[in-house]
């Protein structure tokens, strides 16, 4: 192994440790240099490892550091595995991570918790890289929990406000449900296959489990449970909109570009298990399709800029799951790749606007800001265009197109869901653009961003345009897909993923996107009256309300789980198990009081007792 693979996650982790221990005593410049530098260095290492890898045989390489623990059959190592899939993920995490950290160096400049922020962010990057590079499921689970912890810490970063803390708590608890499913899945896989080493277990699974066997279905379903929790998909999606309580760079890195796509990565990584369980794979696609529609509808109604983006993330991850469900593994990863760029771009440029208006999140109050924030406007526009997949000039177009093609090849219903989703995506994306940057200027910007924040915006905007060309077809398949073949070698079904739909049908997504753009332009740019009139109709208003609260899932879960639980807890406030022990103590004390009454302190009564006792003993002996 030419490159020290283990350094990639180790550098951010070490930086996090350093900042956590000594961060408050270091000057801010040093904190920023350490914080950004560690992740940037691990990007350089990734690039180095990647260039070695690409010039090599493209075979998966394992680097074993040492044996973690040895417990009978359970022999997990701290080992890292590099193959095309983990390389792509690594590149995304380190590259986008470094850019977002660079942006935060200025964005968070006035925050009291500067060192704490960089400590948590680097811990996150390190955990995410551990997750991505893990060679076995146990190490992957370690990273999985690590990113969950960082998500919790960073959502509640401004912990003085109760709302933020509640949001962090909610995110942690709901993802915990998924994590538990994942853990059970892990244990099931281990007890059945006897190993947690990913490549080996996939081989054993395909040998031991026939297609559709109940064990394969159970394992795949449990893994899906974990993925659904982490990736904020139906039915565990409710935490993501609230997670926007954290600082904007956090939302960009964790809740848009990387952590929420960990579920997609997990499914792609374990694709063999999913192929052995066609029902679950179909379920993956169904969950993806349902979530993408549901979240897109909710995104239409939100007024908080970050919440629109949160629902949009949910919706886009829904696309990825849809792609995974129809077996288009590389299309899903490609969308993950482009999504990381344009969604973090949207968050970062949106963050510039929000901070410029002194924490104003309401897009209905904004307007006409394109002259005040020219850079943010152009980059946001590029991001929105990429999100809504404007044809040929954006990265999002190529990745979404691949997904829709694959969906058409598998199931027309899924394709239709994706098509409607494309229309809605384009409407809500340009609704944001028009409401924030066009129309009347209502708010006076207070502050501008510095030059440092401009660098990530420009780089990400460039990538949001050109990243799609990585997968331009060269004689059938794109370079990206060809690269990922290395990870999905065993799969035959990856092939029909590409180019399923006829040429005439391929036009439809383009029409949907442009129609969405036209609708948004009409309602929010040309005729704002119409949008207002539309909002007054009672049926629409009810629907709007329903979509605004995210289809009432919070309400449902609150009734179904939270309230009964709180009620039970209140019933048991005195703790009935404890009553037994307090009772025991009370009886003992009472007996003690009773006996201590006999202790009169008078010698005569003791003597009497001794005499009577002797008499009784004598009587017993004599009269027996």
């Amino acid at each position: 192994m030419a490159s020290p693979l283990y350094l990639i996650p180790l550098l951010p982790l070490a930086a996090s440790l350093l900042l956590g221990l000594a961060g408050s005593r270091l000057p801010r410049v040093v904190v920023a240099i350490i914080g950004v530098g560690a992740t940037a260095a691990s990007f350089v290492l990734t690039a180095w490892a990647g260039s070695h890898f690409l010039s090599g045989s493209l075979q998966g390489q394992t680097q074993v550091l040492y044996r973690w623990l040895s417990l009978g059959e359970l022999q997990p190592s701290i080992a890292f595995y590099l193959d095309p899939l983990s390389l792509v993920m690594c590149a995304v995490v380190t590259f986008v991570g470094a850019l977002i950290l660079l942006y935060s160096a200025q964005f968070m400049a006035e925050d009291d918790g500067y060192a704490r922020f960089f400590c948590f962010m680097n811990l996150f990057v390190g955990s995410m890289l551990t997750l991505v590079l893990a060679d076995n499921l146990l190490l992957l689970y370690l990273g999985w929990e690590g990113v969950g912890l960082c998500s919790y810490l960073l959502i509640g970063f401004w912990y003085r406000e109760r709302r933020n803390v509640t949001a962090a708590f909610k995110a942690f608890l709901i993802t915990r449900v998924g994590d538990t499913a994942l853990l059970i899945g892990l244990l099931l896989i281990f007890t059945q296959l006897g190993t947690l080493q990913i490549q080996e277990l996939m081989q054993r699974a395909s040998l031991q489990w026939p297609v559709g066997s109940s064990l394969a279905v159970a394992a795949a379903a449990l893994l899906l449970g974990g993925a659904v929790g982490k990736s904020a998909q139906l039915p565990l999606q409710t935490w993501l909109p609230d997670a926007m309580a954290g600082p904007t760079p956090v939302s960009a890195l964790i809740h848009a570009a990387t952590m929420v796509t960990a579920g997609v990565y997990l499914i792609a990584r374990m694709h063999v298990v999913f192929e052995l369980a066609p029902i679950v794979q179909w379920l993956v696609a169904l969950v993806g399709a349902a979530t993408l529609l549901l979240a897109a509808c909710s995104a239409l109604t939100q007024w908080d800029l970050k919440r629109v983006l949160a629902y949009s993330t949910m919706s886009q991850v829904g696309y990825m799951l849809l792609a995974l469900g129809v077996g288009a593994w590389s299309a899903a990863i490609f969308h993950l790749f482009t999504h990381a760029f344009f969604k973090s771009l949207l968050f970062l440029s949106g963050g510039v606007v929000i901070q410029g208006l002194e924490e104003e999140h309401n897009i209905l109050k904004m307007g006409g800001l394109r002259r005040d924030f020219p850079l943010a406007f152009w980059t946001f526009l590029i991001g929105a265009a990429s999100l809504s997949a404007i044809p040929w000039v954006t990265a999002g177009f190529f990745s979404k197109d691949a997904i829709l093609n694959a969906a058409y090849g598998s199931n027309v219903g899924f394709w239709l869901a994706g098509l409607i989703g494309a229309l809605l995506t384009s409407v809500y994306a340009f609704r944001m653009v028009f409401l924030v940057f066009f129309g009347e200027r209502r708010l006076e910007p207070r502050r501008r961003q510095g030059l440092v924040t401009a660098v990530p915006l420009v780089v990400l905007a460039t990538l949001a345009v050109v990243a799609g060309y990585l997968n331009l077809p060269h004689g059938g398949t794109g370079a990206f897909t060809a690269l990922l073949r290395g990870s999905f070698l065993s799969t035959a079904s990856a092939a029909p993923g590409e180019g399923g739909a006829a040429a005439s049908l391929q036009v439809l997504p383009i029409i949907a996107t442009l129609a969405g753009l036209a609708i948004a332009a009409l309602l929010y740019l040309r005729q704002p009256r119409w949008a207002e009139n539309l909002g007054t109709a009672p049926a629409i208003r009810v629907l709007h309300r329903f979509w605004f609260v995210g289809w009432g899932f919070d309400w449902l879960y609150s009734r179904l789980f939270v309230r009964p639980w709180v009620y039970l807890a209140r019933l048991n406030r005195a703790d009935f198990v404890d009553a037994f022990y307090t009772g025991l103590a009370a009886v003992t004390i009472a007996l003690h009081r009773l006996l201590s009454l006999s202790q009169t302190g008078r010698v005569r009564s003791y003597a009497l007792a001794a005499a009577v006792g002797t008499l009784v003993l004598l009587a017993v002996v004599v009269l027996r």
Partner: protein
Amino acid sequence: MTGTASLQFGLMLATVLFLLGLIGVLMRRNLIFVLMSLEIMFNAAGLAFVVAGQRWQQADGQIMFLFILAVTGSEVALGLALALAARHHFGTLDTDLISRMRG
């Protein structure tokens, strides 16, 4: 006088003495009198030994009485020392008033 008859009389005398001593221990409140009553009880027990030794013509009874004398002697020495200490410490010899050990 036959051996059996002297044994009966002797044991009855010892019992009466013992009960008198016991009653003294239980009724008296003055520590000195309590100690004296204890002496009487010891002597009652000693008398019983001597009478029994007389009945079976054995020296064990008298030897036992000698032991009892030794025990009583040490008991009186201790008891009087305690009585002095009590008098010094509490200012009284009334056993009912010396009841600091009440639970």
